[in-house]
């Protein structure tokens, strides 16, 4: 079976990562920021999978499993924070939270 060339996989991961980053930087709604972060995490996970299949090692997949767990935990905490934020400020606009400045 012909495998997908590693470059393709990495380019896809790069595009996904950039999209996620752009999402984090541009979205004002904090829920979307969190989703964009998820995309970035999955992009890096994809890069691990691709690299692992290229060299035939299992470490990349183990790493992806760890990222998955991490992402789940992150979402749990992040959503909790968002709920708190909505309760206190009655908004999910991240630009409102700018009290901590020099």
């Amino acid at each position, binding site marked *: 079976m012909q495998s997908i060339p590693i470059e393709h996989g990495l380019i896809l991961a790069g595009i996904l990562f950039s999209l996620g980053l752009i999402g984090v*930087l541009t979205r004002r709604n904090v829920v979307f920021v969190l989703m964009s972060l998820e995309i970035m995490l999955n992009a890096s996970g994809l890069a691990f999978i691709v690299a692992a299949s290229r060299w035939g090692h299992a470490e990349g997949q183990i790493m992806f499993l760890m990222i998955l767990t991490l992402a789940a935990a992150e979402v749990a905490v992040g959503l909790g924070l968002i709920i708190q934020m909505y309760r206190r400020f009655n908004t999910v606009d991240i*630009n409102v939270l700018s009290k901590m400045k020099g």
Partner: protein
Amino acid sequence: MLDLIWLLPTFPLLGFLSLVLTGGSLPKKIVAVIGAGSIGLSFLVAAIIAAQFLANGEAHFIKEVWVWMSVGSFSPGFTFYLDGLSLVMMLVITGIGFLIHLYSAGFMLDDPSYSRFFSYMNLFVASMLMLVLADNLVLLYLGWEGVGLCSYLLIGFWYENPANGYAARKAFVTTRVGDTSMAIGLFLLFAQLGTLNIQDMLHAAEAQWAIGSGLAVAASLLLLGGAVGKSAQLPLQTWLPDAMAGPTPISALIHAATMVTAGVYLIARTHVLFELAPNVQLLVAWIGLVTLLMAGFTAMTQHDIKRILAYSTVSQIGYMFLGLGVGAYSASIFHLMTHAFFKALLFLAAGTVILSLHHEHDIFRMGGKRKQLPVAFASFLIGSLALAAFPGTSGFFSKDEILLAALEMEGPGLILWIGGVIGAFFTGIYSFRLVFVVFFGESKAHHEDKEVAGFSMAGPLILLMILSVFGGLITIPVQEVFNHGDVHEEHHVSAFMHGIMIAVPLLGIGVSYLFYMSRALSIENLMASSMAKSLHKFWFSGWGMDRLYQILFVNPFLFLARVNRADLVDRFYELLVQLTRIAHKMVAQTQTGQLRWYALSIAAGLIVIVSLGVLL
């Protein structure tokens, strides 16, 4: 019993602590008991130790109490070293110290800071004992600085008067010059010889350094710097006359009997180093000679009873330096001891005079006091006879030894001897000028007062009188310490020379008699010419040394201070502060509180770093 040597500095230290910690709340009687009693106990222990040490007949005894610090091969300890030299010093310090403490108990009775006075005195005795019993130079330096501190505290004891504080600072700063030199000397010795244990160091120096080698010269010169500072010799002698601002017992204990002779002790202790540098040793003799003559001239012109005695102290320590310089170490130490007897006596008697006459210091406003102040008169008479080396008194034997040793020295010995004899002539003049002016002549009747001398004041005076007369008969056990290179006891001097040495002080006393007693010669005639007047003024000011130092050191320093009033150096640091502030403001601008802005910064920074990593 010898193991108890650590008790010697411990008693005064405990006395100091108990007086300081109670902060003057104790009644005066208890303060006097603690203050004088601690020194008395020390003296008792010292006497027992001395008896046992002499009975054992061993050359030295070492007692390590504990290791002070241990860094690699450098491990100075609180280790006490007892030999003939430290034995003599220890007995002088505790013995004379005890008498002076006893005297102070009466003398200072009206002072509100009674307890503070005794606490400083006790601390002084503890430090001084540490100095002379130290086995290594670090412990010696601890004592050395300790006595310097106590000297400062006690000169400025009556600190309400700014002049006293100034005198204290002057003494402290001037001796500090010498102390710095000595500290550098210690560093040099440790760096070169790898040990600061005095005996090991001296052996190592003897083994490693050739006679006259550069290192030996440097080390002995640096130690000499410390010694001249502490012992008020040229060129650092200016502090001692001003140190008379302190209470009179202080002048007796610190600035006559013990602390100012620490320099003599230091040179005697490290005499091996000085023998390795013969030129420096000769310099010691010349410093002593010049100092004793200059101080002699100055002492003849002073009016203040304590300043006369102060200059005479400088002059007598000059004799000790002269003796050290010509290699007569045991004679110097002998003179140190007898000088401690009669100079303590003179100062304590001067204290009685001053106290009885309501703090009058000017001798020309006293006069005819021999009936009014009998104890002080007897003390002054005996003290001055001993000071002027009247035959049979203690000062005669010790000064004789030094001068004979000088005479027997090769080379400049004769000049040194002549100088020393001239100095003895001056000693006769100034010491009896004091006696004749204060105790004879017509009474200046404005003082109607009785002599203030209770038992605690008269007792020490009487004991010191006995010591001043018969102290010359004591044999000090220092031969073993100086067994190599010391001048032999057998002197081969013609009777003529001996006659001169006996006659000259008497001649001085005679001259003094003609001027101040019988008035056969008149001061007014002598002072008529303008040259005599300006000479008198010059000598009165101590050879203008104070003014010289004012011009050489104080004024340039003040000038620099004035120039630097705006803190030129600080400008640089202020610039740094300003730059930091600006940078801080700029960086603070970037902290907007916008989370996305931070994320962008992180991403941008990452891109920059990664691309740098790829490109380079």
